[in-house]
């Protein structure tokens, strides 16, 4: 068990370093940091001094090491656009994105899993066919279109929910939360649904297809041949076997939610990290882009690690030392 954890940790760090390398390359070689930071009439000599002071003439590996150390401490330099510390900008907007992502994830899981189980168990029922068709549309429609549609119906026509912004938020330490005010909660509804809808359809289809595959296995056939009740077969055996591979995908989707918040935040003018990232791309604000990249990579890596550990807990074959792919019969 310990070997497994250590191995995964080492892998995670390797990925982070690789991403860090990309971020570093962006940071230092795309455009000229000095040009972006100083005015037009700064003399060449002053620029040279600045370059020296910032250590931009040092050998690349040294700069990279410095970059890594700084990143770990959350120091990402100054934004090209606003000249504020990038770290602080991101931190300000982090709670908004995380709360939104959390609500979207909860929404997609609470509806996606049961719907998937239902359509997997009773695939020929009319409700299943309807859900299948609806899910295909849900997967195809771009997130921003769904958001706009929801805004049209609930904000413009019905006028019951806000179409932009976060409402009022409450400050707890450095975290600003929208959970504790009525307007904050109202503002969360449409964006959460928008963000979570894609994941919901994905989860539903995944659970369904896993369920269908599990129902065709020999051990289900054998369970039936032993005369076990429908409940025992469907929920005792089939469900558990279905959910095990679903865990991985769901975990990965959580990472995707954080990344896709970009679009939803733009549609609803939600003051989160995603919106910040889009603005940084529009203005070629490299430090912000690099920092966002690293942060997202960090989230993904952490989530992957947690999912792998969960997998370990749930599947007894892994505890005996089989690798994941061997356990799945590959």
């Amino acid at each position, binding site marked *: 068990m310990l070997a497994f954890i250590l191995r995964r940790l080492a892998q995670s760090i390797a*990925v982070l370093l*690789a*991403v860090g390398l*990309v971020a570093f390359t*962006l940071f230092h070689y*795309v*455009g000229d940091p000095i040009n972006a930071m100083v005015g037009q009439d700064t003399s060449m000599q002053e620029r040279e001094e600045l370059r020296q002071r910032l250590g931009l003439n040092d050998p690349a590996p040294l700069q990279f090491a410095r970059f890594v150390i700084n990143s770990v401490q959350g120091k990402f330099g100054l934004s090209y656009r606003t000249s504020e510390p990038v770290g602080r900008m991101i931190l300000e907007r982090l709670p908004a994105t995380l709360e939104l992502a959390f609500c979207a994830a909860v929404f997609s899981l609470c509806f996606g899993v049961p719907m998937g189980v239902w359509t997997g168990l009773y695939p020929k029922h009319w409700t299943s066919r309807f859900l299948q068709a609806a899910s*295909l*549309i849900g*997967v*195809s*429609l*771009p*997130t*921003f*279109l769904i958001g*706009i*549609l929801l*805004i*049209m119906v609930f*904000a*413009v026509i019905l006028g019951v929910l806000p*179409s932009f912004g976060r409402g009022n938020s409450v400050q707890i330490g450095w975290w600003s939360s929208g959970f504790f005010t009525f307007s904050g909660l109202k503002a969360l509804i449409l964006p959460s649904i928008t963000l979570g809808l894609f994941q919901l359809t994905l989860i539903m289809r995944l659970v369904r297809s896993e369920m269908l595959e599990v129902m065709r296995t020999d051990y289900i056939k054998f369970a039936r041949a032993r005369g076990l009740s429908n409940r025992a077969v469907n929920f005792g055996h089939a469900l558990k076997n279905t959910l095990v591979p679903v865990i991985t995908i769901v975990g990965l989707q959580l990472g*995707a939610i954080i*990344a*896709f918040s*970009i*679009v939803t935040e*733009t*549609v609803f003018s939600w003051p989160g990290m995603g919106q910040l*990232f*889009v603005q*940084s*791309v*529009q*203005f*070629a604000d*490299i430090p912000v*882009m690099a920092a966002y*990249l690293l942060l*997202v*990579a960090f989230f*993904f*890596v952490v989530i992957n690690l947690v999912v792998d550990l969960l997998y370990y807990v749930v599947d007894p074959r892994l505890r005996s030392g089989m690798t994941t792919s061997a356990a799945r019969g590959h």
Partner: protein
Amino acid sequence: MAFVDLVRRAADSDIWYSFKSSRIVVVATVVTLLTFAMAFLAPILAPHTPFDPATLNLSDALKPPVLTGEDGSDWTFPLGTDEQGRDVLSSIMYGTRLSLVVGIAATLFSMVLGIALGLVSGYVGGAVDAFIMRLADVQLTFPALLVALLIDGVVRGLISVQRHDEIALYVIIGAIGLSFWVQYARTVRGSVLVEKGKEYVQAARVIGLSPVLIMVRHVLPNVMGPVLVIATINIGLAVLTEATLSFLGVGLPSTQPSLGTLIRLGQEVLLSGTWWIVIFPGVTLAILVVAVNLMGDWLRDALNPKLR
């Protein structure tokens, strides 16, 4: 004779049967073909040229669509106009055209890139292979949208804003193409590894035949099947990604708008009640992507040996 034979075999095949018997897929294919036709024939079919500033007239601005029967609606602008007097219907036609061009070009680009890298990675092996695969792994940790955004941002950082607008089309195609190569590369590499171990490859090497020739002649045909399936599914994704990028404001600019750009411009005026500028392009995009996805879904099921 051989051709007639082929057609007869195709008509008798499982795939054609499964195609015919699924009404939805037939409808989806027809819709897709119609949309393609509309898009590519836009210069001929469109009633106006909305992106030629010379033809615009501000007095035509903000006319509502004809079917609402409101004041100001006009059969020359059946779907209404935007705040600069541009005809929505024509904008949609040209916009769809751009969206499709980007989608197809980006898919082709990623396919070629992916196949090439997959072939190299699989055949050469060693450090090159390890490097390419590590790169693939790292890239796969991020959603394609993020990668495309990043690439676009980098390009913006490297060239001036004005030049960027001029070549925006190519930048977008490149960005989207670069974010989707991985799946092709992996599939192709897998096939190459399988073929590499086979005896005829070793025999050919002994004779001195060029390995590239072997790979292209033998591996490629085997692998085109799954590659085409991936490509079909990816076209829908590519179109979606382009629409999203344009919606976010980093895709095609408003001088050369795709459906995504039109939707963005439309949302800005939505709250004042001008709904037609956002809805019609939105509906068009939705129909297009749903139809392409339906086709891709069906194709994937039809070619999947496990489900037969």
